[in-house]
């Protein structure tokens, strides 16, 4: 299915105040890939993601989603394809109740009322927020907001899921829940995170951004094995790859419901 290819070519973005947030970014992500974008604060991760559904316009370069160039005319289609979870859920939850918020997208897409009702209920159950249905977003906790924000996107059944720091502010249980959710999503996933363990667990591929440029792009194992690269980009190894400070040996890892595919890869 070449339909869901994401192709970014020589992308450049300069904010109106002159900040060059992205200098020259290029990559291709094929269908079904799970890609983590990592980098220090201010590296340009959020800026990059916001280009993927046309929230920001490139200053230079181009973006193709499934061979469709991103332009004013193709925007509505592309926004239906690319579901975007923003970094701050308060920006995303603007409707009076959780239900209204999750229904906002489907209603805009023109689904029938009965469908909307069913879809909203399903998606809320999926993210474990069924009981929050009638609450206003401002009475939710940070993690609950995050879950509902994800539901608002899932309710539009996107083909590509883009998330900016999805596990930020979640408690360990909710984090696990979300990770399971993302693992079950069968289409393309692209997300940024400072939660390197999650990146390690969920991503086959990692792109490292540094000061608006792609510094590295490759399999997660390779990237996290490269100490020099990590230090230069103000990053660290995931905890699971560091030696355990307590027992002085094996990797410290709490038991988890889903055993990771690749674990205890020690390097010396």
């Amino acid at each position, binding site marked *: 299915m070449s339909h869901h290819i994401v192709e970014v070519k020589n992308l450049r973005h300069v904010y109106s105040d002159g900040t060059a947030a992205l200098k020259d970014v290029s990559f291709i992500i094929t269908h079904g890939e799970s890609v983590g974008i990592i980098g220090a604060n201010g590296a340009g991760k959020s800026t990059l993601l*916001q280009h993927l*559904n*046309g*929230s*920001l316009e490139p200053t230079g370069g181009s973006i193709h989603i499934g061979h469709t160039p991103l332009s004013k005319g193709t*925007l*509505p289609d592309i*926004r*239906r394809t*690319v*579901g*975007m979870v*923003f970094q*701050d859920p*308060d*920006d*995303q939850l*603007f*409707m*009076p*109740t959780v*239900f*209204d918020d999750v*229904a*906002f*997208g489907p*209603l*805009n*897409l023109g689904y029938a*009322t009965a469908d*909307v009702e069913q879809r909203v209920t399903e998606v809320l159950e999926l993210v474990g927020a069924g009981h929050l249905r*009638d*609450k*206003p*977003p*401002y*009475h939710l906790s940070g993690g609950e907001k995050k879950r509902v924000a994800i539901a*608002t*996107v899932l309710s*539009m059944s996107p083909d590509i899921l883009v998330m900016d720091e999805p596990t930020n502010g979640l408690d360990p249980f909710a984090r696990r829940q979300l990770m399971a959710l993302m693992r079950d999503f069968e289409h393309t996933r692209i997300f940024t995170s400072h939660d390197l363990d999650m990146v390690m667990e969920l991503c086959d591929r990692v792109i490292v951004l540094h000061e608006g440029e792609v510094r590295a792009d490759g399999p997660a194992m390779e990237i996290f094995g490269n100490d020099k690269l990590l230090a230069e980009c103000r990053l660290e190894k995931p905890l699971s790859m560091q030696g355990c400070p307590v027992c002085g040996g094996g990797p410290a890892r709490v038991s988890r419901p889903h055993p990771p595919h690749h674990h205890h890869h020690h390097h010396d």
Partner: protein
Amino acid sequence: MASINKAVLDLKRLDLLANNDSVIHRLDARAKVLVTCVFILCIVSYDRYELAALFPFFIFPAVLIALADLPALFIARKIALLCPFVLVVGIFNPVFDREVLVYLGPLGISGGWISFASIMVRSVLTVGAAFILVGVTGFTAVCQALERLGMPQVFAVQLLFLYRYIFVLSEEGGRASRARELRSCGRKGLGIRSFSSMIGHLLLRTWQRAERIHMAMLARGFTGQFHAYRQSSFGKAELLFVLGWSALFVFLRINNVSRYLGTLITGLFT
């Protein structure tokens, strides 16, 4: 609004009341908006010297507070913070209107005092009605009701945005203000220079937030049209509610029940 901090806390509490479930809460919001309007119009239509005839109208807040199980003390406390402007303007009535209208035994009461008392009672009734309306309906539902009664959609939608982001921004404002207090060693207020940069930063952050919200809306297929998902409808219960209360208000407005009752009682003793 110096104590806006507290006001925002109260706002949250009032907002939560609307989540209760009761006969009154379940009614369509339009019915409650309409009845509140009739109520307020009846109250303000009285002459300035009218006092006794206003009292029967307390039946409305009393019944609603009871049926909707609102915290009466909280509502009373909110009402007690009467709009200071009313108090200031009202207190001039006894000054300018000294003509004695009523004698209670040897004590002459001027028209000014009667009208002042009347203003206070009106204030309690009208302001109370507004609180009770949001308490039993919720702001969102009031907004949607107004929209269905003809308020333009653009206005309704940005009202909902305003309400939603009061909670987010007031927290931001509160944090900024607390941080400042902690660093200013108990000095009250802020020099105008640091004030403007503080407000300016808050404003710029707000502006960026608005841009991000707009992006989030576009990302979810927004094309300029708001599609509402509505469940409640104006049925028999609503009709009964509107007609019943309106009839009572008009009846009370035309017949001074207080006087009938009072005459009856005083008649018994003389």
